[in-house]
């Protein structure tokens, strides 16, 4: 117990960040699993975080209600944004969500109620490590099970070939919007948790580079399976600490290693690190692990 306490004293912050980043990575994973490349989840997290922070801090709203409100608002914005934006293909969707994210960041930067560049200061510290990891466990489990529901199969089909999916009866607009909105809700939820972690949030924490980081967590970890993004987030968040242990503390070197990892993954391990754990070759058995009988 004492050892655990000591561990937390030194690495508590890192453990929290890993949990938060993993949740955010999962929120992007939801959208990516339906084949939609969105770079707006950092902004959704910001919307959730600022909304919840303002409600708790300035309106005395109870924590859980603020978090719910933040998630809900992020979801609504996601829905409204998704409708026009999801008609765009591939990289254009990414750029549109990126532009959206930048507009949100700049607006937040210039409003008084959000504290401007100084950020929102004095948010009560309510989020605990256990809370974060409970949320992570529940989200991860739910997303894992989602894969075997009809919604999950729709997402996969749309991702593989949208036109073919349409001819199989899948309303691709509906499901793409669903994936996008669910991702926004989870991102908003995580932002709300994050806001109550360190007393302060600033606009820079929800900008373009964070959005890009989330994408990188997903790619490095792998987007074929739910634990990929979690793996990617954990590894890349902990990387600076790991490197510090080996004596490589220089900023440029750490940055170069991040870039190198991403490059090596995309060149040689395109399904991410998680693909190292998947059963080789045979593909996944059906929902409950029971292989279907192959008798003729």
């Amino acid at each position, binding site marked *: 117990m004492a050892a655990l306490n000591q561990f937390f004293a030194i690495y508590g912050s890192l453990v929290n960040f890993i949990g938060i980043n993993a949740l955010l990575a999962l929120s992007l994973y939801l959208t990516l699993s339906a084949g939609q490349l969105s770079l707006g989840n950092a902004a959704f997290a910001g919307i959730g975080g600022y909304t919840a922070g303002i409600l708790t801090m300035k309106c005395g709203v109870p924590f859980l209600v603020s978090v719910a409100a933040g998630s809900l608002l992020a979801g609504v914005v996601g829905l409204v944004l998704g409708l026009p934006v999801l008609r765009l293909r591939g990289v254009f969707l990414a750029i549109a969500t990126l532009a959206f994210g930048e507009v949100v960041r700049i607006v937040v930067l210039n409003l008084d109620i959000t504290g401007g560049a100084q950020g929102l200061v004095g948010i009560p510290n309510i989020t605990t490590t256990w809370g974060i990891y409970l949320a992570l466990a529940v989200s991860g489990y739910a997303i894992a099970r*989602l894969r075997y*529901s009809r*919604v999950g199969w729709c997402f996969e*089909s749309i991702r593989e070939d949208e036109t073919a999916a349409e001819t199989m009866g899948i*309303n691709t607009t509906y499901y793409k919007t669903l994936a996008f909105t669910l991702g926004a809700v989870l991102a908003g939820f995580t932002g709300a948790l994050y806001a109550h972690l360190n007393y302060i949030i600033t606009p820079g924490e929800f900008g373009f580079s964070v959005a890009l980081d989330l994408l990188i967590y997903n790619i490095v970890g792998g987007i074929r399976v739910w634990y990929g993004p979690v793996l990617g987030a954990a590894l890349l968040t902990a990387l600076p600490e790991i490197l510090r242990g080996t004596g490589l503390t220089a900023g440029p070197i750490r940055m170069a290693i991040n870039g190198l990892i991403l490059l090596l993954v995309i060149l040689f391990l395109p399904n991410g690190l998680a693909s190292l754990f998947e059963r080789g070759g045979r593909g996944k058995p059906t929902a409950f692990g029971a292989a279907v*009988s*192959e008798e003729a």
Partner: protein
Amino acid sequence: MLLEVNEVTRTFGGVNALDGISLAVEKGGVHGLIGPNGAGKTTLINVLSGIIAPSSGRVFFDGSPVHAMPAHRLAARGVARTFQNVRLFPAMTCLENVIAGQHLVAPRPFLPILFCLPSARREEAGYGQEAMACLRRVGLADRVHVPAKALSYGERRRLEIARALASRPRLLLLDEPVAGMRQKGVRQVGSLIQSLAAEGMTILLIEHNMSFVMGLCSTITVLNFGRTLITGSPDEVSRCPEVIEAYLGVSEHHA
């Protein structure tokens, strides 16, 4: 009449890919659609499956107008199709491709699956068996867990048919189902189509393989330059001079 096409026109940037097409497909038959390249066959299938809308004209499926419907609504009515250049889900296995095709018939609700309820297990086992049945039907029972991208060309075409069957359609639109296949595969697909028709399935197929079409179809429509030349029995079509001229460019008299 299961399917009625009324004066359907489809224009692309000034070119009439379809120019006043009319045809009718009877329930439970195999209807062939042939014509030289560029005649508009695939465009017609795209209109019939809802991928593109007609510029004018109407389509009726089982009596209801469907020409303004998007693809997923048409699929829900019982129209399934395969594609000329095979659009499978490459990363999924054969079984998974078929399971994905069960969208319309397998609700797979989230909550029972979330809580791993026994009812969900039972239903999933049932759907699994159905999917296996589709695979067996097309002769892919031994390739269950093989990723679709690893299949041979002929196997891919058959898998696409299996996936189309998974939604229990009433009308099956096949766009060149045996193109580029070897004799054995062609025969396999031919007897598959025959057995499906015998069970009451209505099939409309595009093909260039003449013996395949002539031997299988009860009615054939010939298209050329976006217009119907003739609709008739294989005999009538093979003897029609305009059809021969469309394909060979030379009328019989001058032989």
